[in-house]
């Protein structure tokens, strides 16, 4: 047993070292003297603000779309559900760049939908709307998947009990099922936000990489590395890393609290 543990520890250490190596190299490249200047530069501030604004708005929209969809997928059986589940998981396993190309063809001026939208004066490509669309695309998928698991953990009989107590189904959903799935939904929101914040590939296709216009933090890293402005690129990367760390920590804490609650609850939700 001891030998097996040591053998299995080796790949674990290798993976950890790889991540640590990448992080350490980034830290070593941080321009400590000019870091404050890089962090406070107009470009970094613009990228940070745009990333926060778009990712939070995308998160809100993705939650509004994803939570009801997740509930439906968790509670209802219907023909073709397996196919729909597979379709919804596609953004999780394909590079967003691929989705970006597809969306570009759909929404471009020559695209099926894009040409129609252009006639109505709605411009999606190479604008903030393009960033939002790309972020919603990646966030909604992970929100549906995580929220669906959260709803599935809540025994549907709680909702039925609420109906017999006079609550209409929508209120039963809002006052019983959503709070009972609360921690899972919060985890879904954190993961969705993290995905939206770090989105790059689809954004590049849909919104382009224009300085001080569609420059989110990942785009700022890309633009500044491409133009040799390593300081600015590393500063943006550092901000992304700190945000990612905080969000991941939040997810871990939520999961830990849930585990503790289940361990101490003699009558868990399921």
């Amino acid at each position: 047993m001891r030998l097996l543990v040591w053998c299995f520890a080796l790949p674990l250490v290798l993976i950890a070292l790889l991540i640590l190596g990448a992080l350490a190299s980034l830290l070593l490249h941080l321009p400590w003297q000019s870091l404050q200047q890089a962090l406070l530069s107009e470009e970094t501030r613009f990228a940070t603000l745009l990333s926060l604004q778009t990712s939070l708005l995308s998160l809100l929209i993705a939650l509004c779309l994803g939570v009801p969809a997740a509930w439906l997928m968790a509670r209802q059986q219907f023909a073709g559900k397996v196919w729909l589940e597979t379709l919804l998981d596609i953004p999780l396993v394909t590079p967003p760049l691929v989705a970006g190309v597809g969306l570009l063809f759909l929404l471009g001026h020559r695209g099926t939908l894009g040409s129609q939208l252009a006639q109505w004066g709605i411009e999606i490509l190479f604008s903030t709307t393009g960033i939002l669309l790309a972020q919603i695309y990646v966030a909604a998928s992970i929100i549906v998947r995580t929220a669906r698991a959260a709803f599935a953990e809540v025994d549907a009989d709680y909702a039925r009990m609420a109906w017999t107590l006079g609550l209409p189904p929508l209120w039963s959903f809002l006052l019983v099922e959503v709070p009972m799935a609360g921690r899972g939904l919060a985890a879904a929101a954190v993961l969705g936000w993290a995905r939206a914040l770090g989105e790059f590939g689809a954004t590049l296709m849909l919104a382009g990489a224009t300085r001080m216009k569609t420059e989110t933090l990942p785009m700022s890293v890309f633009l500044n590395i491409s133009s040799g402005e390593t300081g600015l690129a590393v500063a943006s990367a550092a901000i992304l890393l700190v945000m990612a760390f905080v969000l991941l920590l939040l997810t871990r804490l939520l999961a830990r609290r849930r585990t503790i609650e289940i361990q101490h609850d003699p009558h868990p939700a399921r």
Partner: protein
Amino acid sequence: MTHIRLDNIGCRILAGLSLHVDSGQAVAILGPSGSGKSTLLKVIAGLLPASGKLYFDHQDISKQSPHQRGLAYLSQDLHLFPHLSVKRNLWLALLFGCPKGINKRERIRQALIQARAEHLAERWPTQLSGGERQRVALARCLARQPGLMLLDEPFSSLDPANKQALWQELDQLRRQLGMTLILVTHDPLEAQALADRVYNMAGGQLLSHDDPAVPAD
């Protein structure tokens, strides 16, 4: 008080079942697991679809949703909402369908007193013992002052002493409040303690009814 009539109720498990319960009467349905007795309660509560007609006080409610039927349903698992305190569990039951001008706080207090659970008002469901959970679930049903109460083996997990105490209290309450009650159980003693009439159920059919003093076979 609610007068109940079921006409030719049928679904995957129930086979054209009819039942008539007078206002304020208590009926017990005995039967082994899988006989369809819980299904019958769910059909009455509107939780399962079925063919046939269901009348409350001569009004056809077959098409009504569960939240519109104005009854109380107490199941074996109780389903106290774990994210709400005991008091809030009762408050939720009064949120819809409660007549305007009713003092909800007073109604909650009354229901907790009736179920002898007033000392539990500030606790959380996870902090309650089995017996306490039953009392709180009962109080939640009573808070709505339902005309009809459906009981699906709600006391099956209790020890005999606790069970008998609750039977007595529930029987007294039912008579005092004039509630119509339909109970399903596999325990003839429970049926005898709570019901005016006992039916036996097998294969989705009500086969016989007797005086509760003589357990139906």
